[in-house]
């Protein structure tokens, strides 16, 4: 199988999936993920995670950044769960 079935580790580096585009949509007041003939309107936390999937930051850095931004801790499990779901849907892939 391809990288789509690999396990996500703290040092895995996610990026937006091939053929997908993430952008802020003023009319919807939301981040959206655009892909061939479709669109997902993202909720706030999904948008925060995906905007950090830039192909250079590893998962642990993304978690740390989010925890700092929202002055909280213990987000790793939630972020990993989201990224697993996102990977299944090809929203993200891992370098």
């Amino acid at each position, binding site marked *: 199988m391809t990288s*789509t079935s690999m396990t996500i580790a703290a040092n895995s580096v996610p990026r937006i999936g091939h053929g997908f585009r993430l952008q802020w949509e003023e*009319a919807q007041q939301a981040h*959206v993920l*655009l892909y*061939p*003939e479709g669109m997902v309107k993202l909720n706030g936390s999904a948008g925060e995670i995906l905007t950090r999937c830039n192909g250079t930051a590893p998962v642990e850095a993304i978690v740390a950044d989010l925890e700092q931004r929202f002055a909280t801790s213990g987000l790793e499990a939630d972020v990993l769960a989201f990224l697993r779901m996102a990977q299944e849907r090809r929203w993200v892939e891992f370098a």
Partner: protein
Amino acid sequence: MSAAPNEVASAGGVGPPLWLLAELTYRCPLHCVFCYNPVDFARDEAELSTEDWLRVLGEARALGAVQCGFSGGEPLQRDDLEILVAEARRLGYYTNLLTSGIGLNEERIARLKQAGLDHIQLSFQDSTREVNDFLSSTRTFDLKRKAAALIKAHGYPMVMNCVIHRMNIDHIERIIELAVELDAEYLELANTQFYSWAHINRDHLLPTREQLQQAEAATNRWREQLGTRMKIFFVVPDYYETRPKKCMNGWGNVFLTIIPDGTALPCHTARMLPGLEFPNVRGSSVRDIWYSSEGFNRYRGTGWMKEPCRSCPEREKDLGGCRCQAYMLANDPAMADPVCDKSPHHGVIVDIVEKAQAPRVEAEARPLVFRNRKESKELARPF
């Protein structure tokens, strides 16, 4: 209708058009027997100019449209396609090209890539040269395979579309194999919906129940085998359903279609509906068209419904189905879509489906009608 357009808009909280479908031209090198272009597409009407399209792209984007599909006919027939794609991409659209692949060569795809085109959907008519070429009345199978190779070579996700019907549904596994061979990421197996040319050729195209069940089972086996490698969409022919589809995800809800002459429609076949004026982008702004025109407001929401839709607990779920189908099969666009088994006209669908179970129905039917200008002019009717 009693409600004025503005009342509908304010009461229903109409959202922006998220999808702009730019049908650039009805010119097409293929002559497919299931084409969804209007039967009278060959009425002599001037296509919108490049400048008109550029203005439409800007106005729709300003309202919030974010997906843009360039289709037709064959959109590659427009030699300003690259200009339109570049502008759409610059405006922030995700740009989709829906093509037969005819006219796509190394030079053209390189220019489209440079213009920022995001995605290409390539249509096939069958897995075999014989059937593909017969159904499209052309010799195009090898050209399509070349187009598929170009699409992959230029780093595009490969979305393959094949319209499925009685004459090719038994080849469904070979069609899936072709998609695997071409390394497609997505495969749309879209059973024919019976509008326009497919409506004329319905006796030839509606599969039997058994064909459909076998095709679905085969598709599910391949889905399991392929896992996440390829995503397969299987669209059922709605004549086999007992509840209607939420057509276009709701009238004037998400989709804004502009046809080659600039007429704006809630869906590509809506112009067939009687007693309804649709605005043209040559004379109206996209904002006025979307929010204030009678054509877009008439069947928005649920206020227009008659019984049994009006009191149906599922009315919000499917919005009464398809207005064109209600018109074609029940002679009134405000009736329930006859696909629904609560519709007093559902018997029409039952009869058509029953007739399709008979073997060799093709032999008794009239000959297939290929989509071309000559037939279009002779038939001279909207569906």
